[in-house]
Each structure stands twice: as structure tokens, then as C-alpha cells.
């Protein structure tokens, strides 16, 4: 107990999370008198999960797209299709960011790649400064409920390690994220339309010619979401296959055909993208060991019994879960939170009769809010740095968006059917 507390304090004062988790696994196995070689054996399991292949491949593809001219083409196309609506450019921002984040995995790339284009455009269109700032900061993590976003995959990977009676398939998680993700986009779009009431903020008239031009310009990238999302949602591709095709296709298009990324920049992009992958994988690797120890010692079961003694209704549990996850989101980034916390709360949630796939969506939707929750929400800092605004101003600007996302999270939590309708065998 004392050692667990010490590890927690070390993590809170800035020790890398993987080290704190590895430390807890080492101490745990040591106290059970298990040979510590087991930690190496657990880490080696990273080489035994075929689905993990998708993580480096999608991340690399996302970084390449972010460095290319694809974000500008995406914005132009969305603008041609939706820009004529009232509040059109704001909706364009939401939709383009959501699509882009689905492919780049909510790593902060979206604000950097798309925000730089959309922010000045929104200002030029006379959206209020504060609205613009809040919109872009919020959009940066929108879309992580859409396949093939990294957090969805990671939730599936973690849940699959747990030997549940009801196996969690990644296809099911993808299907489950679709409607909740659309709910978030539509609620934020509704707010944007309402914000533009009484002003004359709308783009030019709809033009088929501009749509045709935007389609021609984006002809190489447009098949990508259609093939990948269509393939994954229809079940035609396995996830790692979709990732393999995407990585190679993006590489060929942006480097060899469009030549927007010079070959000499490629090693740098590879390294940058793999820094993120490595930082996640090492946490995942050591967590396989600590989770194994947790399950061996039946910690989740005992925790469930302890909680059960005080809370007997599913509803109360869900309220507490929401509060807990919001607090968690303020402290931890989505990837570490997934790997560290899901193994503990998933068995408890199942005990309360919550579907494991639904729990995943609740978890990720809550964590998405964490990106814009003070004091440590990552998007707040990226936006503050990128648009040269004080962090406090960014906090204030995101408040209305925070409230809307919170409302959507509550709907997602208390209306399981929204997540589970599209799941093949709920």
C-alpha cells in the first residue's frame, strides 16, 4: 500500500507513466515471489497481437497527411459542399476536423494541421474572436469516436486482454462510435448555426463548379476515407489490412505522385510519428504485466464488491463513473488513461450490467472532454501556443463548447441504444 502511494506521488510529480506502471508490476510480482523475467515475457506479448500492426501504420499515414497539402484540400472540399449554409464555415471546421482526427488519432495533429488554415478563414468571415478560438480548440479532438481513430483501437486491444465472457470485437467498437460521434458533431453544428443568427455570416452561394474543382483537386485523397471507412465498416478489410493499404497509398500519393513531401523529410516524419507510437506502446507493454498482476490478485473483483456495498443502482454508478472519468481526463491523456484505467473499471462496469462496448464509448467520449478541460487539457495548450493567445483566454473561449460536449456525453452515457444499435450482436 505504501509503495503504491509512493508510485502515485512519483507519477504526479512527473515520472514517466510507463516507469510508474513498470514499478508497480515489478513490486507486485516480487511480493508474490514470481520470477521477474515475467515482465519481459509480458512485454514481448506486444509481438503477439496482430491488431497492433494498425497503430504504427495509421499513425505514420496521419503524420504524412498532416505534412502534405491534404488538409487544405479537405477544407476546400468541405467548404464547397457545406460552406453555403448559415454558420457554414464553422460547420466546415467541425466536419473537416472530425474526419481528419479519425485518421490521425487525436494526437494534437489536427489543431496544428487544420487549425492553421481554419482559424484565419473564420476570422476573415467575421466570426467572433472568442467563438473562433473555442471552436478550433474543441474541434481538435472531435472525431475520435469515428473509425479508424487510434483510441477506439486501443480500447479494443486492452479489452481483449481481459478474457471477458463477452469478447469485445474492434469492428463492434467502430460501429458503436458512429452515432455518438455524429451526435457530437451535430450538437456543435447546431450551436454554430445558433451563434451565427442575426449576423450575415454565411459563405458564398453553392456552386457546382467549385465542388467539381475541389473534387478534382482532392481526387487522390477522396478515395481514402471511402475505401478505408467503407472497408472497415462493411467488414471487407481487417483493420491491419486497412492500415497497411492506407500507409502505403498515402506514402505513394504524397511523396511520389504529388511530391509535396521531399524524400529527405521522410526519416524525420517517420521518427516523429514513432515517438508517439513508442510512448504509447511502452505504456501498453508494461501495462500488460501490471494488468496480469491485477487480474491474478483479483483486484477488480474486490474493488467491485467494495463499491457494490455502497452503490446498488446502475444509474448512481454511471453518475459516479462520469465524474470519475472527467476528473481522470483532467489528469491523464487519453492513451495512458485507456491502458491504465480500463482494466480496472471494465470488470466493475460489467458487474453493473453495462455492455463492454458501450463502456468504451462512454470512456472515450468523457476523455475527449478531457482534451479541453483545465488545467492540463492538451488542446488548450496547443491552441494557446499555436494562436498566440493566453491560456486563460482559451479556457474562457471553450466554456460553451465544453458545456455542449458535456451534454452530449450525458446523452451517450444514459442512452446505451445510441451506441449499441449498430453493433452486430449486442
Amino acid at each position, binding site marked *: 500500500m505504501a509503495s503504491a502511494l509512493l508510485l502515485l506521488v512519483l507519477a504526479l510529480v512527473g515520472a514517466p507513466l510507463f516507469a510508474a506502471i513498470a514499478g508497480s508490476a515489478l513490486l507486485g510480482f516480487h511480493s508474490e515471489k514470481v520470477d521477474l523475467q515475467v515482465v519481459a515475457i509480458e512485454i514481448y506479448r506486444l509481438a503477439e497481437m*496482430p491488431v497492433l500492426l494498425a497503430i504504427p501504420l495509421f499513425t505514420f499515414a496521419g503524420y504524412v497527411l498532416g505534412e502534405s497539402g491534404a488538409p487544405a484540400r479537405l477544407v476546400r472540399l468541405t467548404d464547397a459542399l457545406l460552406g453555403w449554409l448559415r454558420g457554414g464555415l464553422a460547420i466546415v471546421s467541425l466536419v473537416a476536423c472530425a474526419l481528419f482526427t479519425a485518421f490521425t488519432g487525436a494526437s494534437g495533429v489536427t489543431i496544428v494541421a487544420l487549425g492553421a488554415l481554419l482559424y484565419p478563414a473564420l476570422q476573415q468571415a467575421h466570426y467572433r474572436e472568442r467563438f473562433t478560438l473555442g471552436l478550433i480548440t474543441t474541434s481538435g479532438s472531435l472525431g475520435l469516436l469515428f473509425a479508424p481513430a487510434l483510441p477506439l483501437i486501443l480500447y479494443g486491444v486492452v479489452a481483449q486482454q481481459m478474457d471477458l465472457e463477452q469478447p469485445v470485437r474492434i469492428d463492434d467498437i467502430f460501429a458503436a462510435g458512429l452515432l455518438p460521434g455524429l451526435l457530437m458533431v451535430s450538437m456543435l453544428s447546431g450551436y454554430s448555426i445558433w451563434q451565427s443568427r442575426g449576423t450575415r455570416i454565411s459563405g458564398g452561394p453553392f456552386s457546382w463548379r467549385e465542388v467539381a474543382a475541389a473534387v478534382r483537386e482532392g481526387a487522390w485523397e477522396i478515395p481514402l476515407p471511402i475505401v478505408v471507412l467503407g472497408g472497415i465498416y462493411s467488414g471487407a478489410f481487417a483493420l491491419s489490412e486497412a492500415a497497411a493499404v492506407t500507409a502505403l497509398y498515402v506514402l505513394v500519393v504524397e511523396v511520389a505522385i504529388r511530391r509535396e513531401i521531399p524524400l529527405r523529410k521522410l526519416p524525420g516524419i517517420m521518427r516523429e510519428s514513432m515517438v508517439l507510437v513508442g510512448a504509447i506502446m511502452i505504456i501498453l507493454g508494461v501495462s500488460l504485466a501490471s494488468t496480469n498482476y491485477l487480474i491474478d490478485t483479483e483486484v477488480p473483483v474486490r474493488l467491485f464488491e467494495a463499491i457494490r456495498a455502497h452503490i446498488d443502482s446502475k444509474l448512481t454508478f454511471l453518475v459516479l463513473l462520469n465524474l470519475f472519468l472527467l476528473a481522470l481526463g483532467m489528469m491523464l491523456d487519453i492513451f495512458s488513461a485507456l491502458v491504465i484505467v480500463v482494466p480496472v473499471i471494465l470488470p466493475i462496469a460489467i458487474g453493473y450490467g453495462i455492455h463492454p462496448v458501450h463502456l468504451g464509448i462512454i470512456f472515450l467520449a468523457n476523455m475527449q472532454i478531457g482534451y479541453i478541460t483545465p488545467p492540463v487539457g492538451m488542446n488548450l495548450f496547443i491552441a494557446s501556443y499555436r494562436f498566440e493567445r493566453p491560456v486563460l483566454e482559451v479556457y474562457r473561449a471553450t466554456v460553451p463548447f465544453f458545456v455542449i460536449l458535456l451534454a452530449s456525453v450525458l446523452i451517450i452515457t444514459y442512452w446505451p441504444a445510441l451506441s449499441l444499435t449498430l453493433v452486430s450482436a449486442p
Partner: protein
Amino acid sequence: MSDAESGKRLENAIGLLHRLEDGLLALVLGLMILLAPLQIFLRNFFDAGITWGDPLLRVLVLWVGMLGALAATRGRRQISIDALSHVVGERARSGFGAVTSLFTAVVCAVVAYHSARFVASEIEYQTSAFAGVPAWTCEIVIPVAFGLIALRYALYSMGDLRKVLAGRPVEER
């Protein structure tokens, strides 16, 4: 050999190590990007993949992960809870940095030691991973990566400690 000379040599060696890591990382990722679609192509059009292709790809995932983690360590970019750095002064930050880095170095050294024992036993029993490839050649990346990560955090810890003692602010790397 003078101090300056040996310092220079050390710097060259470190630079070489960094280039080696980056090169290996790009090589492993590049191989993965080519091999993964090739497997799909062969499976769908010729109804036969390379038999060792899939296990190799899975091992490459481990390698990319470990080498990526090593690269993340180089810029001190491992994922951590960054709650304190906005609150405390720079000298205190160096103090916390010295302690947490030392802790990380010790943990990684222990993991490196026990994974080296694991690899040694795999060499002894001549375990095979796939297609006759000895298992230890796939696993060796674990002790090597954790060993280097331990070394780097030990150096960070000493650097932070020196800053605390000198009362100078911590520099961002």
C-alpha cells in the same frame, strides 16, 4: 588523452548512436510499410502469403514500439502527468526531475536486467520464434531499449541534480 579530447569522442559516439537508432527505426518502419501490403496482395491474388511474413510483421511492431520509446526518451517526451510544472518554480522542477529520472532509471535497469536473463535463457534453450529464426534475435530489443532508456534517465537525473545544486533553471531539451 585530454578531457576535451575524450569529451569530443564521447560526443561523437553519442551522435553515432543517435543516427544508428534513427536509421534502424526508419528501416523497421519502412520494412513494415512494404511487407504489410505485400502480404495482402499475395493473399488475395495468389492465395498464398509469405509464411513467415505475418510473424515477422508482429515482431516489427515490437521493435518499432521499443525504438520509438527510445526516441521519445531522447527528447524526454515520454507520456507523463504534467501537473506540477505549471505551478512550481524552475529549481523545484529540476529537483523533481532529478528524483523522478533516477526512479525511472532504476526501474528500467531492473527491467533490462531481467529481460536480459530472459533472452539468455532463450539462447540457452535455442527457442525458435518462426521459420527457424532464433527467438532471442526478436527479443533482444527489449533489454537493449530498456538499458539505453535507463542510461539516459540516469544522465538526465545527474543533469537535473547539477542544476539544483548550481541553482540554475532547467533547460528545455
